């Protein structure tokens, strides 16, 4: 445990000591502000036109819908924590310091999970803070729900950061990792779901519901569709575990 803690410290130094990490944080916050503000003002305008009663929606819903955008920025530092090491060949230094490869990956995974969670939670708070002035009287707080949703966004961001780390360790390439993440986090569920519906293949529609973005949505929104938030969280954990295991297998069997 002590040995693992030392790797966490080392990886945290690596993560915080490159500017790209802080560009990603800034970019994600900016994306959240813009998305929540635009969505909030347009929702408020619509509601005014419909003469909707005050408090028709929640402030946190703006943060939730912006996750679709920020989810492509949040996992970038996690990915770079490994792919930049292959690109610069500094992986040789990492393995000299920590020759136990499982420990090295667990060290990285712990840090990117914590970092993703912290960043996601921050983004949730930012989204709510922007939502209050943007939605005005049409928004409302449900105290427990707001906190729960914000933490769920953090959890989701931590999970997809681990997915990015695993995929990055497996592919060793930023370009390949970004492409795969885009595919898995956005394209696959929509594409397969659409195809399944068009062809009347229910099984494909079912499969399409188990991609990380859909699974994340269930436990961030607390919805029961298409399955319970607990199943959503388990599904997402499965994705993170699978990606990390694939990365670990590559790290252990292939020459560095």
């Amino acid at each position, binding site marked *: 445990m002590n*040995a693992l803690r*030392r*790797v966490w*410290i*080392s*990886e945290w*130094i*690596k993560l915080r*000591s*490159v*500017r*790209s990490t802080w560009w990603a944080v800034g970019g994600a916050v900016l994306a959240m502000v813009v998305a929540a503000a635009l969505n909030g003002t347009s929702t408020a305008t619509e509601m005014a036109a419909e003469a909707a009663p005050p408090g028709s929606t929640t402030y946190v819903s703006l943060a939730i819908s912006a996750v679709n955008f920020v989810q492509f920025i949040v996992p970038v530092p996690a990915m770079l924590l490994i792919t*930049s*090491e292959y690109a*610069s*060949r*500094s*992986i*040789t*230094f990492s*393995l*000299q*310091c*920590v*020759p*136990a490869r499982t420990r090295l990956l667990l060290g990285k995974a712990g840090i990117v999970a914590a970092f993703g969670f912290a960043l996601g939670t921050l983004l949730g708070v930012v989204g709510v803070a922007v939502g209050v002035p943007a939605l005005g009287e049409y928004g409302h707080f449900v105290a427990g729900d707001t906190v729960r949703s914000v933490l769920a966004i953090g959890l989701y961001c931590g999970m997809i950061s681990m997915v990015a780390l695993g995929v990055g360790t497996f592919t060793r390439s930023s370009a390949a990792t970004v492409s795969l993440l885009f595919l898995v986090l956005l394209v696959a569920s929509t594409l397969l779901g659409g195809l399944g519906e068009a062809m009347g293949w229910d099984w494909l529609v079912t499969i399409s519901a188990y991609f990380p973005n859909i699974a994340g949505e269930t436990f961030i929104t607390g919805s029961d569709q298409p399955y319970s938030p607990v199943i959503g969280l388990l599904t997402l954990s499965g994705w993170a575990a699978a990606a990390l295991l694939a990365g670990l297998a590559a790290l252990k069997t292939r*020459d*560095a």
Partner: protein
Amino acid sequence: MIKLTGLTKRYGAKTAVDGLTVEITPGRVTGFLGPNGAGKSTTMRLILGLDRPTAGRALVNGKQYAEHRYPMHEIGGLLDATAVHPRRSARNHLLAMAATHRIPADRVDEVLNAVGLTDVAGRLAGTFSLGMSQRLGIAGALLGDPHVLMLDEPVNGLDPDGVRWIRTFLREFADQGRTVFVSSHLMSEMEQTADRLVVIGRGKLISDTEMGALLTGSSVRVRGPELARLAAALAGQELHWKSETELIVSGLSAEQVGDIAYQAGVRLHELRPVETSLEQAYMELTAESVEYTEPTR
């Protein structure tokens, strides 16, 4: 101490390291020579556990690299000094390495000072010249105050100042009773730095000798006024006349030639073994194992 036993590494059909058995002992500088593609870097990667050997073992102080709890205290290895994240400062690069062994930040500053990088410690590693990168790499290798230092081509791309710095540095390190294993393709550099030479070609051990033994060829230079009589006494040996008063005798030691001259009653003005340059000895040793040959026109 580094001990290689039947170390073998194959990449597909190509054998990079082929049954290498050699011991690198403390207290001196062991040079590791071979033509390009001979398997020097691969051997060092195997020693550090970066690549998995196909067969055989590489032990550092009695254990495989990955079996050591704190490997950086055992061996400081530097394979590629430029393999550093270009956007991270030199000091942060070392701090991240040090954290894995709970080495304090003071030690980081100490090694930065030892290699003369204190003033540029906050600069991004990507802005470093090759010489500065080499120094940073050596600083990293020294972090754990190891007993073994292993450097791959450390003088590559260095200016004369840097070359002299590394040479002095390695000498002092070995004189403290520690092990130094250093590869180079610069024969002249090895001639001045190493006490012992391990030469490989096509992954196989070609020679493992003391520097002195390698440089002393088996020919003797003789000068004197009566060499014709000596030549008669040496009948059957390979002789090479330089002039009427200078003769090169091959296949005999200086002692043997001296004894023969004494028995024949021949006056000599000079008798000494001919030292081949390391470059020459190396070319002879590796002539059959160069990976790439000059294109024929």
